[in-house]
């Protein structure tokens, strides 16, 4: 966006949407984690000035003890977290809708929010359908994995066993296509909120068919980037080792994690923006 545009407040909706997408993850995560961390706080493990650092010490003796001794309490806390997770998913879906709407048409915050509000029910139906399809896919994958017969396969020495590799690839690819299709339909839904779902589906599908490599290539590149960011963050956290004394380590890990969440929001933004550019009726197609 240009400096002038930015000053005019035209992009305030987009900025808000980006910040809310990050906050939905960060704050949502914070709230979801609360029951479990409160349960840990009640345990004897924290009766020490070192706090829960002992849980991350080398060997994880205290962590194993915590799980053994307070396993039942932690399980109950996890159930409470699961309830909060479902609320968090709704929050996240709304922030996502806000982001898509803001990308579709950069406007001041209030207009973006009002426009997004009209699409909420359809957005949730679409999201619910995608979630259901993903669950069915995983079930199908498990069924396939259970029925493959690795004993009857070739003697080729592969890194993974051939049948399991095939099942894994099938699930990954199908899941990828499903997510791609859902995202394309989301863009369609925001661009033309009053279009029927059936028409939306047909149009999205025909567009995907036409340019599958472009869509799937970009999708995979951004997913790969996300995986890389996640792996790098995991290594950084390992290196920072919060099991050692030093409050700065906790702060640094917090920084790494928030940077990761922000980067993932950024990747989501780049992906959605590319999709909009590709799917607008006036785009090159």
């Amino acid at each position: 966006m240009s400096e002038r545009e930015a000053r005019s407040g035209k992009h305030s909706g987009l900025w808000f949407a980006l910040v809310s997408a990050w906050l939905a993850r960060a704050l949502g995560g914070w709230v979801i984690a609360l029951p479990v961390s409160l349960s840990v706080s009640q345990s004897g493990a924290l009766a020490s000035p070192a706090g829960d650092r002992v849980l991350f010490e080398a060997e994880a003796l205290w962590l194993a003890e915590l799980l053994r001794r307070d396993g039942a309490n932690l399980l109950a806390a996890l159930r409470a977290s699961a309830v909060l997770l479902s609320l968090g998913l709704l929050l996240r879906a709304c922030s996502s809708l806000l982001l898509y709407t803001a990308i579709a048409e950069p406007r001041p915050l209030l207009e973006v929010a009002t426009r997004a509000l009209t699409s909420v029910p359809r957005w949730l139906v679409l999201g619910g359908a995608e979630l259901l399809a993903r669950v069915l896919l995983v079930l199908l994958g498990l069924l396939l994995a259970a029925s493959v017969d690795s004993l009857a396969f070739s003697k080729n020495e592969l890194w993974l066993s051939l049948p399991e590799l095939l099942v894994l690839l099938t699930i990954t690819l199908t899941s990828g296509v499903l997510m791609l299709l859902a995202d394309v339909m989301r863009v369609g839904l925001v661009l033309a909120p009053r279009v029927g779902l059936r028409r939306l589906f047909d149009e999205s599908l025909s567009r995907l068919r036409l340019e599958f490599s472009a869509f799937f290539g970009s999708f995979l590149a951004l997913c790969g980037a996300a995986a890389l960011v996640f792996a790098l963050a995991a290594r950084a956290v390992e290196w920072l080792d919060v099991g050692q004394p030093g409050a700065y380590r906790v702060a640094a890990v917090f920084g790494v994690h928030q940077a990761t969440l922000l980067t993932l929001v950024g990747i989501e933004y780049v992906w959605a923006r590319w999709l909009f550019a590709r799917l607008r009726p006036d785009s090159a197609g």
Partner: protein
Amino acid sequence: MLASLWRSGWARLAAGVLCYGVAFAISLPRPPPANAVRALPPASNERRAPDVLPASYQLHARLDPNTHVVFGRGSIEWQNTSRVEVPSLFFHLYLNAFKNDGTLFLRSPFGAGRDGTRATQFGFTDVKTLKVREFGAEDLWPRHAPHSPNDPADETDIELPLPRAVKPGERITLDVEFEAHLPQIVERTGFERSFHLVAQWFPKLARLEPDGSFAHFPFHAQAEFYADFGRYDVTLELPENFRVGASGQRVSDTVANGVRRVRFVAEPVHDFAWTAWEHFVERREKIHGVDVTVLTPPGHAQSAAVTLESVRASLPYFSNHFGSYPYSTLTVVHPPVGAESAGGMEYPTLITTGAPWYLPFTGARGLEAVTVHELGHQWFYGLLASNEARFPFLDEGINSFAEHAALKAAYGAGSAFSGFGLQLSETALFRAVSVARAEDEAAAGAADQFSTFRNLGALVYSRTATVLETIARVYGRAKFDRALRAYTETQRFRHPDPEAFFAALREGLGEDAVTVLRKALSERGRVNYFARELQTARKQVPAGYFERSSGRELVTRSTTPAGEHLGRVTVYRHGDLELPVDVLLVAEDGTEQRANWDGRGAFRVFDYVGDSPLAFALIDPEHKLLIDADLSDNQVAVRKATASRIHERLAYWAGLLLGGVEP
């Protein structure tokens, strides 16, 4: 050019795949450092072989892979090494454990064996003839008892009365013909399609103890084996496309008319097992002077690499700590999908391991743990051939301790799991498993006497390992290592009992350590140290009326000008184990004071004097007392801390989950 390339969907796809590849490579667990093994001085008087080989087998076995029957014949040379005449022999026909649902092994209504698997295709051993050359041409097998002693439904422990008693020192030769009908794998032995793990497959003589009694027992699902040392010369006959692995050294391998004949010689050992499958992928490597062969199903290259890595790390470790590996070969077998129950078992120079193909990529070291554990059995079962049925803690327990030590030497604190900034050791895991059941039963009990296999696992494996690790940490690692080394040296190629083990530890560590060990393993001994009543106050000048030489003086209450602080914490001991323990007293300004208690008595009061108020007391700061029943009461503080690290970590994971799952 680059820009136009990037516009292509395929280039983006390639970039995505590359990112995934790099992410995957970054996430792979790291191999152990090359210098992981701390060497002990080489043994000076290591025994090379047993004094006698009482039971040697020369066998010929033909496998029919379609009917899963092994047609066997051969001779057994046996010597009466006891002090008395022996009127009958005892044979273990272990495959009869899988004959029907009524056997001791399978009769439980809740499923048999260690994992509750039920037999689907049954198996048995059918002895056709048995003659003793010294006693003439009579087939003696019809004389055999029809079933195991006192158990009409079981045929795994069979007595064979002889025409005359065998004199002390006398050697006889038995000619035997038999058929081993393999079961579909229930546990450790049998077939799964064309995969065969052929173990406990021949009529096996029970071990004769020096007092003339046979150590014979029916095959119980929770128990293992016990036998005399001998020489095994076995020729296997199977279809030419089958790959085979077996105990001992391969001395010939020929193919004629579509039949492969492979001869193996193993000496001195007390069992012989083999495996055959046409789909095995074979990898070989010379490790620490031993020819190591890894047999895996197709598609398990990473598993094979991890297996070799584990052997590379642990074979030198075990050799350094428990005496050299006396054989020239080692075969490691990964059973295929469907035959997982055959994994995780030890036979002389042949071990089975296994894990799902994805496990090596997760940070969990399950495959390493199983491989190292089974390799450790080459010492604690193989060379120190204790009675596994009667004293399972001597093989499984000590070996679990050895496994932890070897894994820790190789992989450090993350010996069970390493990833995402968390390092979980096997020691921590086994401690948590064992402490919950520590008082259920004695860990040093006989295998068939344990109430459940879960209890056997928690007590024989985990509890014994945890107790031994505690003894090593409390009484000194170096002294403990030397004592255990002395035990493995003196008992090499022998059949030690618990007293031999306790004697070696008494010699190296003293009576106190052995008292704790005995109580903890044999008498359900337990201990829980805990801290209570942390008090802290500024030191005060004593107030009140005091009789002085100048007369009665009233002193008003006030604190000392120097601002000294006093503190007190009481540490209690519950349970019957008395172990010395350290207590750490930490002041608000971080200064530390350390005190020690020999553990005798019910409690001990620890007083503190310092410039800053006492903030915290911690029992056993170095985590020596792993058998402490509850760690959470080992500390007491003025103020509780927060769970900031846990909360931060969980919040991040939940944030990721929201991004990944949301609609």
